[in-house]
């Protein structure tokens, strides 16, 4: 951090009203398993998982439902015991409302665990073995990005990171699931952190917690006291403190290069919720089948934090939280800044669901969009130091190259710019659109290359077939010639042939 920031505080980001209480102070509840669960096969970053069960098959809680597929993927397990009712498409928890493949599981009401393989002395295990067990438990980053954790652990071991940063920032307004988890399960989290230190080979762990969560800081400090390598560091409450780049900058003073990764500066960041999932996976052998979800917003009767089995419909979670008061103006999965607006409530909870928000019209505060007045509020708010107004202008004119030229690729889509915009311009939607378009262009390029390869393979094949045909014809001809020569050689004399012919005639 520069001198200016030392004296005048952080210059980037915003400080929205956090709306975390009273939901954060309400005791954690556990939701009973619903009759039917819809377990999406795309709950993580990367390729969807491949189903490993058949329709009608009986499974117990924790049995594997789907195998990871490809380099970046994660396994998926049964959130309860019961019967596989269907494998098919259901509406995805996504703003588009498009379908996603899912395994529908009918609960038998017993909620009976399968045989679990725990471990009493995990520190005796090889680091690679810990990664393997984390992968087998289907653990993904619970902060929202849902990157497969095992992959992150083994990658950081390879790139020799020195510092493990635990993200307890939870800078999004309304959300308090990490806060609640740190208050309730601090010891588990610290154990998970130590396991992750062991798995990555990092020497120290810094737990960054925003200073608007004093109870969580106290609980975590207490739990981490016996372990010198784990230290709890309160950080100023400021959105987007929970963004990887920002948290690393504040805690270590290291800035990640534009197209770099945290590993480039010897750091790896995990969410505190992930640490607990790792603890569960290693100590008890329990796969990731449920998670703590914040249910909040003015339309929720009893806001709070609820343990929800993965695959429960949002509708049922809202009903468990006392039902809705009035029709929500907007239904959001995740936080209000970076979460996804849901088309309806009949979509399942996935591993990355940190919150379900039912906001009323006052909280959404939607106003008509007005033209840009070039006030540069967005420039001041941008935590990366980009020019959101310029990027949006380029995207508006469909000039993606120009937008990339002013830093589109570095945008973390935190939404600070759109939040501060006095003209209510949906800046972050512009960036999401442009990033989607760029991804589509990249896909088209890959496709064109693949097409070229296939066309080449075909012409090679045709050539080969023609050659083989010609060779075959030549061989046959040669054989015929040889056969003819052989008959000519065996035939004793021309006269005898003539006799033979005469006899035939």
């Amino acid at each position, binding site marked *: 951090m520069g001198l200016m920031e030392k004296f005048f505080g952080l210059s980037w980001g915003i400080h929205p009203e956090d709306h975390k209480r009273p939901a954060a102070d309400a005791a954690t509840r556990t939701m009973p398993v619903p009759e039917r669960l819809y377990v999406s096969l795309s709950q993580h970053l990367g390729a969807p998982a491949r189903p490993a069960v058949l329709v009608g098959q009986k499974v117990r809680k924790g049995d594997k439902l789907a195998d990871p597929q490809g380099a970046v993927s994660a396994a998926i397990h049964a959130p309860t015991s019961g019967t596989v009712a269907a494998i098919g498409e259901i509406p995805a928890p996504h703003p588009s409302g498009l379908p996603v493949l899912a395994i529908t599981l009918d609960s038998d009401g017993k909620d009976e665990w399968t045989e679990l393989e725990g471990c009493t002395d995990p520190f005796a295990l090889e680091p690679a073995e810990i990664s393997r067990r984390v992968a087998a438990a289907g653990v993904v980053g619970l902060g929202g990005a849902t990157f497969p954790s095992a992959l992150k652990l083994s990658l950081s071991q390879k790139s020799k990171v020195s510092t493990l940063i635990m993200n307890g920032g939870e800078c999004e307004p309304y959300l308090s699931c990490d806060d609640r988890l740190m208050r309730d399960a601090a010891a588990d989290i610290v154990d998970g952190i130590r396991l992750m230190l062991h798995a990555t080979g990092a020497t120290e762990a810094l737990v960054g917690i925003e200073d608007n969560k004093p109870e969580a800081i106290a609980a975590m400090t207490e739990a981490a006291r016996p372990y010198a390598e784990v230290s709890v560091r309160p950080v100023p409450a400021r959105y987007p403190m929970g963004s990887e780049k920002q948290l690393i900058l504040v805690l270590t003073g290291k800035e990640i290069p534009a197209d770099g990764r945290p590993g480039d500066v010897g750091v790896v960041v995990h969410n505190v919720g992930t640490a607990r999932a790792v603890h569960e996976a290693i100590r008890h052998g329990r796969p990731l089948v449920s998670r703590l979800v914040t249910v909040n917003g003015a339309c929720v009767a009893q806001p709070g934090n609820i343990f929800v089995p993965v695959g429960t419909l949002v509708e049922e979670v809202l009903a468990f939280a006392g039902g809705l008061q009035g029709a929500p103006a907007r239904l959001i999965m995740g936080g209000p800044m970076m979460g996804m607006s849901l088309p309806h409530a009949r979509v399942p909870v996935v591993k990355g669901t940190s919150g379900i928000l039912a906001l009323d019209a006052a909280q959404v505060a939607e106003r008509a969009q*007005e033209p840009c007045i070039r006030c540069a509020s967005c420039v001041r708010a941008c935590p990366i130091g980009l020019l959101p107004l310029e990027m949006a202008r380029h995207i508006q004119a469909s000039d993606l190259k120009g937008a990339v030229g002013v830093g589109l690729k570095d945008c973390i889509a935190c939404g600070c710019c759109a939040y501060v915009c006095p003209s209510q311009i949906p800046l972050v939607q512009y960036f999401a*659109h442009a990033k989607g*378009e760029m991804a589509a262009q990249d896909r088209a390029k890959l496709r064109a290359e693949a097409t070229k390869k*296939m*066309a080449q393979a075909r012409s090679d094949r045709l050539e080969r077939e023609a050659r083989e045909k010609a060779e075959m014809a030549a061989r046959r001809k040669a054989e015929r010639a040889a056969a003819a020569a052989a008959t000519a050689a065996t035939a004793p004399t021309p006269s005898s042939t003539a006799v033979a012919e005469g006899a035939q005639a």
Partner: protein
Amino acid sequence: MLAAILSLTVLGAILGLVLGIAGRLLAVATNPIVDELEALLPGTNCGQCGFPGCSGAAAAIADGSAAPTCCPPGGKAVAAALAEKLGLSLDLSGMADDGPKLAVIAEDLCIGCCRCIKSCPTDAILGAPKQIHNVLKEACTGCAACVDHCPTEAVLMQPVPVTLQHWVMPKPMAA
């Protein structure tokens, strides 16, 4: 009068000579833009442009006898890339481009004649004589070369379905 004619003639002759010699001495082999254009084309040699394959189309585009918009499977994206390479400004609004397409075989019409299989430039159609054929979605480039070969009109071109992986957030409306 004579001085004027003479001096201009001499000046012109000298300059002409110098340029002529320079043209010989400083000749540079022009870079083969045809290869660059061909690299931009899909490379399936589907023949929808009316030229013998993508290299023929590239040559025609390079010498100006074909428009950069002549490649239907490439669509607007390829046309824009070609125009940029040639330094042309192009009005793409007139170009029909209703998004990428995929060939689909209507199973109740397919008689298993294998004609479409032979016409596919990427070997994307699977099948055997008297068996219903099928299109491999991943390999189909939507060039429509197979459509005309089907005797029962069982090959249809359908838009590529939008999936979660392909979905792009729509551009917000400007104020």
